[in-house]
C-alpha cells in the first residue's frame, strides 16, 4: 500500500477561521458551535414533545375537560411525542450535541476530521425537523399511528394523518438518517484517526467510548429504518404492497395484496432496538465521567466498562424481536430472543455495579451534577429490572401493550437518559459557557424532576398490572378495570404537569447564568480529562492554541497516593506531577 505515514496530522487539518458573525455562529464549521446548534434544535423539538405529552396526559387525567383534545388529536400527540423524544431529541442531543462537543476536545483534536461535512449534518438535521414540524400544518395533521408506525393501520383511512402526515414523517426520518450518517462518519473517524499524541483507545474517557459505539450502532441500525421508510413510502405513494396484505375496508377490497406487515416490524425493530442503546450508551459514558469526577475516584473497572459498552453494542443487534412477542412467531424464536435479551442484562448489570463501586468509599462531592448522576443509577436500576420481566415471553404476553410497558421504557430510556443529560449539562456548563450556574436552583430542579418522575411512573406499573391498555383515548366502562384506575391517572397527570413546569427551573438557570453567573474557573470540578485542560474557557476555534496536547495517562487519575492534588490531568507527564511528599521525605 503506497500510503506514507503522516508526519503530523495537525498540519493536514485545514482550519477555516470565521471572519464574520454569520460565519462564526450560523455557517460555522467549528464543532463546538455545531454542537450547540444541534443541541439547541434537539431541545427545541424536545420541548414540543414535552408539551404534547402534557396535552394528552390532560385527556387521560381529566377526560373531556380540554375539549379540543379529540381522539384524533390524542393519537397524533402520542405518536409525535414518541418519535420526537426518541429520535429528534435524544439521538440528536447525544450524538449531534454531546458527540460534537466532547469528541474533539476529549481526543485532543482541533475539530472533527471533516468540518464541512459536520456543518452539512446540522443543516440537514434542521431540514428534517422542519419537515417533521410541517406535518402539524398539513391537511389531516401529523400521523397518529403510534410512534412505531405499524402498517397497515398507519396507512388506512381512519387513522389520523394517513394521507400527508405519514408521508412527511417518513421523509423527515429519511432526511434525519442522512444527517446522522454525515455526522456519525465524522465522529467515528475522529475517534479512530485523530487522537492526540499518547492518547490510545484505552485511555479515552468513557464518554468518548459510549458515543463512539453508539455512533457505530446508529450507522448500522438506521439503514433498516431507511429501507422500511422507503418501502412504506412506495406503499403509500405508488400503491405497492410491501407491507400491505389484502384488506377489506368498509366492504371494499383495497388495491393491495400479498404484503407482509410483520416484515415492517422486523425492519423497524432491527433499527428500534439498537436505537435504545444509541440513546443509552452515550448516557452510560457521560454518567461514568460525572460520577468519577465528583466521587474523586477513578472509575471502577475501566476496561470492564469499555468491553461492556462494546458487548452491549454487539448484542443489541440480536434482541430486536423481543418487541414482537405478541406479533406471533415461532416459539423457538421467542426462546432465542428471550435468551439474548437476558444475556444483554449481564454487561448492563456489570456497569451498574461498577458505578456503585466507583462511589464506594469515594470522597463524594454532592454537587448538582452528582445529584443527577446518582439519581440516574436509581432510575436505571428500576427501569432495567422491569426490563427483565418484559424480556421473558410468558411474562411479556399479559403485560404487553399495557401501562407496565410504558412505565418500563420511560424509566429506562426516558427518565434515565434525561437525568444524564441534565447531569452532563450542569457538569460541562462552566466549560461551555465560562460561567457557573446557580447551584441551589439546580438542586431544586433535581428534586422536582427526580421525585416528580417517580410520582408519574411508579403508579403506571400498577396500572399495567391492572391490565389498563396503553394508547387508549378513554377507558370507558370496562369491568376488569376498577374505577380507582382513573384516580391514579389523575394523580399521574398532576405529577406530569408539575414535572413539566419545573423544567422551567433549568431553562431559567441556564439563561440567567449565561449573563449573571459568576465567572467559572477553567476546571471547577478538578477533572483530569483533556477537555478541562484547554488554554481558553470556553475553548476557542482550534481548541488548543499553538500545539496539540500530549497525553501521558488515562482520564481517571483521581486521589492518586503521593500526588499533591487529588487529580492529575491527562496531559501532565509522570516527572512533573507535584508530589505531596516533596517537603518531608524522599519517595
Amino acid at each position: 500500500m503506497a500510503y506514507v505515514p503522516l508526519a503530523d496530522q495537525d498540519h493536514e487539518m485545514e482550519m477555516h477561521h470565521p471572519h464574520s458573525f454569520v460565519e462564526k455562529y450560523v455557517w460555522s464549521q467549528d464543532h463546538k458551535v455545531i454542537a450547540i446548534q444541534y443541541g439547541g434544535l434537539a431541545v427545541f423539538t424536545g420541548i414540543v414533545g414535552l408539551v404534547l405529552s402534557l396535552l394528552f396526559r390532560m385527556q387521560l387525567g381529566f377526560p373531556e375537560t380540554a375539549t379540543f383534545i379529540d381522539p384524533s388529536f390524542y393519537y397524533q400527540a402520542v405518536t409525535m411525542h414518541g418519535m420526537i423524544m426518541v429520535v429528534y431529541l435524544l439521538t440528536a442531543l447525544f450524538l449531534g450535541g454531546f458527540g460534537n462537543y466532547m469528541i474533539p476536545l476529549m481526543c485532543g483534536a482541533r475539530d472533527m476530521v471533516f468540518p464541512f461535512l459536520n456543518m452539512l449534518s446540522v443543516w440537514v438535521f434542521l431540514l428534517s425537523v422542519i419537515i417533521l414540524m410541517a406535518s402539524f400544518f398539513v391537511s389531516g395533521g401529523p400521523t397518529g399511528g403510534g410512534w412505531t408506525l405499524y402498517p397497515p393501520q398507519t396507512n388506512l383511512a381512519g387513522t389520523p394523518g394517513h394521507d400527508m402526515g405519514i408521508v412527511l414523517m417518513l421523509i423527515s426520518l429519511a432526511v434525519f438518517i442522512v444527517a446522522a450518517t454525515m455526522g456519525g462518519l465524522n465522529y467515528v473517524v475522529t475517534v479512530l484517526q485523530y487522537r492526540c499524541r499518547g492518547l490510545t483507545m484505552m485511555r479515552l474517557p468513557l464518554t468518548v467510548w459510549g458515543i463512539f459505539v453508539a455512533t457505530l450502532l446508529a450507522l448500522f441500525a438506521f439503514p433498516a429504518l431507511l429501507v422500511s421508510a422507503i418501502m412504506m413510502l412506495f406503499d403509500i405513494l405508488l400503491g405497492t404492497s410491501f407491507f400491505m396484505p389484502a384488506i377489506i375496508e368498509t366492504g371494499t377490497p383495497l388495491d393491495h395484496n400479498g404484503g407482509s406487515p410483520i416484515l415492517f416490524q422486523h425492519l423497524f425493530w432491527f433499527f428500534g432496538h439498537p436505537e435504545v442503546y444509541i440513546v443509552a450508551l452515550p448516557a452510560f459514558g457521560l454518567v461514568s465521567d460525572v460520577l468519577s469526577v465528583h466521587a474523586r475516584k477513578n472509575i471502577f473497572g475501566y476496561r470492564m466498562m469499555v468491553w461492556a459498552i462494546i458487548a452491549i453494542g454487539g448484542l443489541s443487534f440480536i434482541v430486536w424481536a423481543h418487541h414482537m412477542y405478541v406479533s406471533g412467531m415461532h416459539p423457538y424464536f421467542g426462546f432465542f430472543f428471550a435468551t439474548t435479551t437476558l444475556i444483554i442484562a449481564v454487561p448492563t448489570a456489570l456497569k451498574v455495579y461498577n458505578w456503585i463501586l466507583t462511589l464506594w468509599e469515594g470522597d463524594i462531592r454532592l454537587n448538582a451534577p452528582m445529584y443527577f448522576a446518582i439519581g440516574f443509577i436509581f432510575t436505571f436500576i428500576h427501569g432495567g429490572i422491569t426490563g427483565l420481566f418484559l424480556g421473558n415471553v410468558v411474562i411479556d404476553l399479559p403485560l404487553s401493550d399495557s401501562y407496565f410497558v410504558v412505565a418500563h421504557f420511560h424509566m429506562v430510556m426516558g427518565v434515565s437518559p434525561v437525568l444524564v443529560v441534565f447531569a452532563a449539562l450542569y457538569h460541562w456548563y462552566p466549560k461551555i459557557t465560562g460561567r457557573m450556574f446557580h447551584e441551589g436552583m439546580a438542586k431544586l430542579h433535581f428534586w422536582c424532576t427526580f421525585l416528580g418522575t417517580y410520582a408519574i411512573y411508579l403508579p403506571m406499573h400498577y396500572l399495567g398490572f391492572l391490565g389498563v391498555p396503553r394508547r387508549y383515548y378513554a377507558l370507558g366502562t370496562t369491568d376488569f378495570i376498577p374505577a380507582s384506575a382513573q384516580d391514579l391517572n389523575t394523580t399521574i397527570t398532576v405529577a406530569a404537569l408539575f414535572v413539566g413546569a419545573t423544567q422551567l427551573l433549568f431553562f431559567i438557570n441556564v439563561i440567567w447564568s449565561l449573563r449573571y453567573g459568576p465567572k467559572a474557573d477553567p476546571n471547577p470540578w478538578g477533572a483530569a480529562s483533556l477537555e478541562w485542560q484547554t488554554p481558553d474557557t470556553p475553548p476557542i476555534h482550534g481548541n488548543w492554541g499553538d500545539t496539540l496536547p500530549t497525553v501521558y495517562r488515562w482520564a481517571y487519575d483521581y486521589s492518586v497516593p503521593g500526588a499533591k492534588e487529588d487529580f492529575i490531568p491527562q496531559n501532565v507527564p509522570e516527572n512533573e506531577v507535584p508530589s505531596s511528599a516533596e517537603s518531608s521525605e524522599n519517595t
Partner: protein
Amino acid sequence: MSEAITSGGGPEEGVTGLVDDWAADRQAYHVPWGKAMMWIFLVSDTFIFSCFLVGYLNVRLTTTEPWPSQSDIFALSFGGGEPIPLILIAIMTFILITSSGTMALAVNMGYRKEKMKAFWLICATAAFGASFVGMQVFEWSKLILEEGVRPWGNPFGAPQFGSIFFMVTGFHGLHVSAGVIYLLWVAFRVKRGYYDDKGFEIIEIAGLYWHFVDLVWVFIFAFFYLL
C-alpha cells in the same frame, strides 16, 4: 499508566499488527481520514442493501400470487431470432465488472503518479458506468412501455415483482449514477493537478466506492435475476 505505545518501524503483519494498530495512539488504521470514512460508510451502505434484499426474499415468500419467470421476462431477441434469456443483464454485469478492472488500473496509475493515464482510466470507468445506467434505462423503458410492468402490478404474476425490481435496481442505479458523477469530479481534479501535492489516495477511495457498487450488483444479479 505506562508510557504510550508508539509504533517504531514498519507496521506488523497479522494479529500482532492488528493489536499494535488498535493499541497505538493517534490513529487506529494507517490510512488517511477519507479512506477510513469511506470504509465505514460502505459497511453502513451494506446494511441498506442487505435490508432491501432481505425484504425482497421475505415478500417473495409472503405474496399469494406466483412469482414471474425472470428468464422469460428478461429475454431479448436479436434480429428476430429466438429470445436469449438474461442476455442484457449478462452484458450489463460484464460491463460493470470490466469497469472495476479499469478502476483498479487507475488506482495503480495514480500511485505511480502517471496522472494522465489515471485520468483516462477513471474516465473509462465512468463511461462504463454511464453505459450501464443507459442499459438500465433501456431495460426499464422496455418493461414499462412494452410489457406493462408497473410498481403496483404487472401482467406476469405477483405485483411485488415490479415493486422490488424498480426499487432495488433503481436504488442501485442511483448509486452507479452518483458514482459516475463522483468519478468525473475526481478525474477533473486529477487532471487539474489538485492532488499533485496531496497524493492520489482519493482515486483509491473513489475506487472503493466503485468496487462496492459492483459487488452489490453481483448480489442483486444473483438474488433477483437468477434465484
